[in-house]
């Protein structure tokens, strides 16, 4: 289990490979990569991600431990960036490994749902027309109900 909350860019390539070579019981590896998007109508200049140092790590470690236990994962990885990010940059990488595919899929999905709504990160978008804090979505809160 590995967590990194970092300002500097990470390189998703190599992360799967690392996971890949860990354990002969691993049959399934799922990764999720979240990136900074830009809209054609209102192009994004950059995004600022603020977080709560200390609490961020604690919350994510708890979410990861819960996922490992619930889906009997062989391993899991979370990398989440903060600071200034431009369109096309990677924000978050989640990877899960398990014996069979269902577990790895569900656990990655679960980790993303909780990272979205329970880890203390806040995104601000800066465009030519101004800056605004990203609002939380009802849909993200509803997504959490799937895991009850």
């Amino acid at each position: 289990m590995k967590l990194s909350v970092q300002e500097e860019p990470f390189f998703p390539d190599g992360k799967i490979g690392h996971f890949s070579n860990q354990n002969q019981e691993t049959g399934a590896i799922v990764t999720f990569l979240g990136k900074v998007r830009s809209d054609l109508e209102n192009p994004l200049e950059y995004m600022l991600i603020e977080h709560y140092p200390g609490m961020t790590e604690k919350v994510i470690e708890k979410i990861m431990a819960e996922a490992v236990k619930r889906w009997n994962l062989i391993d899991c990885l979370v990398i989440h960036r903060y600071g200034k990010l431009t369109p096309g940059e990677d924000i978050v990488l989640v990877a899960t490994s398990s014996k069979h595919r269902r577990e790895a899929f569900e656990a990655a999905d679960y980790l993303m749902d909780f990272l979205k709504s329970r880890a203390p990160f806040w995104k601000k978008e800066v465009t030519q027309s101004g800056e605004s804090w990203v609002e939380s979505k009802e849909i993200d809160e509803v997504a959490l109900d799937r895991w009850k």
Partner: protein
Amino acid sequence: MTVRVLYFSWLRERIGVPSESIETEAVRVNDLLDELRKKGERYKLAFTQTSSLCVAIDQELGDMDSDITGAEEIAFFPPMTGG
């Protein structure tokens, strides 16, 4: 008691500081909020609407009724938008 109070996202911007030390006798988060609102217009405005306000007591999520007796760090922030 003295608690460290932290603000994030637009709460931080509205209040104007990321954190401060507050001398308080508040028992619940709501009591602390009432005290903060009295500190001035910026606080009052920031805490007008508390329906979607989030709070963490010593880095654990709580709610407006949570007991803060003995807490060292109270953080206020809007709903999280990570991932």
